[in-house]
């Protein structure tokens, strides 16, 4: 039924595909995280000219398919001669740069909304207390808003990272040889489904499982105060 010989023969290709998928995931999520924190800060602001542009950005990105965003960057930009003649063209013509840019824009939009929601949910009492202590805006954000928001956002952020991992499969449409592209190549060479798509399905499942475990561990670390079992047996004050 399933020809393990084909799987074995292509194992180095699958491993390389896995490496590319992981690199895409890490560089996109890292850039997305770094951009999302300040954007979420702006998104949660009360001033319309601060939150307005961020809202527009997340609305447009979240309202259009990632595939279309990727095509606009990779195929679309070549339409303009001034872009093709600019110094940035060496970067913009590369499928790697376009995939990274599209994935980063995408995950930034979703993560910004997740973080902004968590920031807005900060208990009023905490903010009042911080004000009463005489904290400035900056100190208040990093000591009060962010630590709480990060904890509230963690479960949803974990989902977003898993979604992003699945989204890296779209890089196969712009010539990047990640896991799914390897599967499609193996399929084209041998015309077998289980050995090609089935094998990468196992890879994706293992990755999903590992990411879920990683975020469960992070939740245990950061949300320990919410776990009734973790506090059992510890001395109670008052």
């Amino acid at each position, binding site marked *: 039924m399933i020809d393990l010989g084909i799987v074995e023969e292509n194992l180095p290709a699958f491993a390389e595909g896995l490496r590319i998928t992981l690199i895409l995931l890490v560089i996109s999520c890292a850039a997305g995280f770094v951009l999302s924190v300040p954007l979420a800060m702006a998104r949660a602001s009360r001033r319309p000219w601060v939150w307005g542009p961020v809202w527009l950005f997340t609305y447009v990105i979240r*309202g259009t398919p990632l595939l279309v965003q990727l095509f606009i960057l990779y195929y679309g930009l070549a*339409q303009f001669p001034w872009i093709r003649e600019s110094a940035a063209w060496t970067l913009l013509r590369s499928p790697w740069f376009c995939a990274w840019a599209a994935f980063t824009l995408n995950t930034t939009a979703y993560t910004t909304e997740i973080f902004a929601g968590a920031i807005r949910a900060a208990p009023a009492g905490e903010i009042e207390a911080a004000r009463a202590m005489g904290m400035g805006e900056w100190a208040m954000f990093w000591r009060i808003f962010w630590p709480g928001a990060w904890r509230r956002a963690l479960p949803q952020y974990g989902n977003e990272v898993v979604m992003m991992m699945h989204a890296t499969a779209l890089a196969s449409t712009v010539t990047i040889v990640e896991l799914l592209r390897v599967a499609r190549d193996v399929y084209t060479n041998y015309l077998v489904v289980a050995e090609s798509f089935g094998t990468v399905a196992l890879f994706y499942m293992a990755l*999903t499982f590992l990411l879920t475990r990683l975020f469960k561990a992070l939740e245990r670390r950061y949300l320990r105060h919410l776990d009734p079992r973790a506090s059992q047996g510890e001395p109670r004050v008052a």
Partner: protein
Amino acid sequence: MFHGYLPMILAGLGVTLGVSATSLAIASVFGLAGAIAKLSDNAVLRAIANAYTTVIRALPDLLLMLIVFYGGQILINRIADARGWGYIDIDPFLAGTLTLGFIFGAYLTETFRGAILAVPRGQIEAAEACGMARGTVVARILLPQMIRHAIPGFTNNWLVMLKATALVSIIGLDDMVHRAGLAAAATREPFTFYAVIGAIYLAVTTVSIIVLRGVEARFSRGVRRAEAA
């Protein structure tokens, strides 16, 4: 401005919306069946439903679509060979909608399960005490009230699915993305056409949000909202 390609692209919107609506109908069936299986007393049904939602949600949409498209093709032709029917081409519309329906059914299973659980148990008991038949309980008590709880999750899934339909262009369906690609190749203006369909997707998303907000308001009549502090 669009070299006369706009009508063709708009006709592609019809295909995109057709795929979305059909997939949503299929997903709702899978979702309801999954939710009922997850809440049933039968351990085998529960295990199947759990395996379904776990596996589907662990894989990329595009991978599942290719598995159904190529795998289904091979499977059907193997059957056809054995019976001597000759070569059968799998219809990309069927493959696309079935796959999307199957995938989003897994997500809707969770939405519907939560919505069913949100209907107070006492109401069902009361209906049974009044002598209502099982079907009547579902139609008069469970469904009208679970819809309200299901709408936010349903809206989300619809919006995600609408965007996921862009992937059917990869398995050869003649949707909006595919047509934009054709127009882009013919006119050498890829940015224009991909930006146009991006704008169309955004418009459909916006209209969907407005309509579903109205539906939610309608099903939430009679529910008092907490006053905002």
